[in-house]
């Protein structure tokens, strides 16, 4: 198994991610936090990140959340990206971006 070190720039969190799984799954598997977790399937856009540095493989993701232009600039969904080397990422996803406006008072979770 080949692992690569992922750094989440916002929190300074680092973890080793198996190159066969996504950057998001690698974070979750170790109980690490920093990137918001949504559907894990490229559909909901919650785990949007910007790749600051590093090489990666990616899969198709929803155009509702990542335009072709953004994708070309390294803005991707963390659930669709597998590391090919050491990576540094920055979080763009806003977990509560879609929450009903009427219900915007903090929900106790």
């Amino acid at each position, binding site marked *: 198994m080949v692992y690569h070190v992922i750094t989440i720039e916002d929190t300074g969190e680092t973890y080793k991610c198996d190159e066969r799984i996504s950057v998001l799954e690698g974070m979750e598997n170790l109980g690490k936090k920093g990137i918001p977790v949504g*559907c894990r399937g490229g559909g909901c856009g*919650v785990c949007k990140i910007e790749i600051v540095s590093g090489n990666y493989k990616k899969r198709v993701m*929803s155009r*509702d959340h990542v335009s072709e232009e953004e994708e070309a600039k390294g803005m991707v969904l963390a659930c669709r990206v597998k590391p090919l080397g050491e990576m540094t990422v920055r979080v763009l996803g806003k977990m*509560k971006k*879609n*929450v*009903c406006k009427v219900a915007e008072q903090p929900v106790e*979770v």
Partner: protein
Amino acid sequence: MAMTGVLRPGHAIVRVLDLEESIDFYTNVMGLVETGRDKLGRVYFKCWDERDHNSFVIQQAPSAGIEAFAFKVRTKADLEKFDSDLRAYGCPTERVAAGDLLETGERVRFKIPTGHLIELYAEKKEVGNGMSNVNPEAWCAAAEKGIAPTRMDHCLLYGGDIDGNQKLFKEVLGFDLVERVKLEDGTTDLAIWLTTSIKAHDIAFVRHAEDGKLHHVSFLLDSWEKVLRAADIMSMNRVSIDIGPTRHGITRGTTIYFFDPSGNRLETFSGGYQWYPDTEPVTWTWEEVGRGIFYHDRKLNDRFLSVVT
């Protein structure tokens, strides 16, 4: 109660990002039965115990989400009546020709106030459930392949004007309110569960800033044990689980929320209760919404209100 008018959910048309991966998931993990593919590239499925040709249709698209949700009505005369009633109510309709969806008759399609497309149809080819209508067996091999739900049961949709949806579904389509969650102000509905049958819900809506969103399409299982078996199959196949196995306070179903490979949330559930037209609606207050949605955790998770496709 004689069951007339709108009978039941008939089909969901769902957008997926990668068709081949989705066909594999719905066939081998979900255990749906593939019944056809059309020239537009749509792939058709039914649950093993359903008798009509299809109840779940996927199509490849640049984004995930729901294209349309349909209900079967009892007769062609019902279809005509609903079409004219909808138009008289002020809801424009369009006709989609028979055969546009494989083995499916003419559909009446309209947009509801939350921006979702709803369809009605009266005819779909009966292909049977793999067992005879004369002296049948109790189940067949397809009942054990993958998760193998017995039917596509209901959906939960997110959008702004759920009050407009409730009015249209009640006044034109004959649905009834079964349960609701109130917001902090005690009057505004955050969510509503509606039925057209004796099920606790045939469709549900949650108030949301963005229109046209899918929260989940739900599939019925026979028992809590089968819900646990479904969870095992999800882990064996590394399926993305949202929450569960657990129970809902609302409708009392035992449940797992999980995601298909494109991030569309699905549910497999069992149980709940039966509803009759003389049953008073159940109301959940904002303070107890956590227990209403997830009866065991007793708290909302962030994803319930914000992760949709």
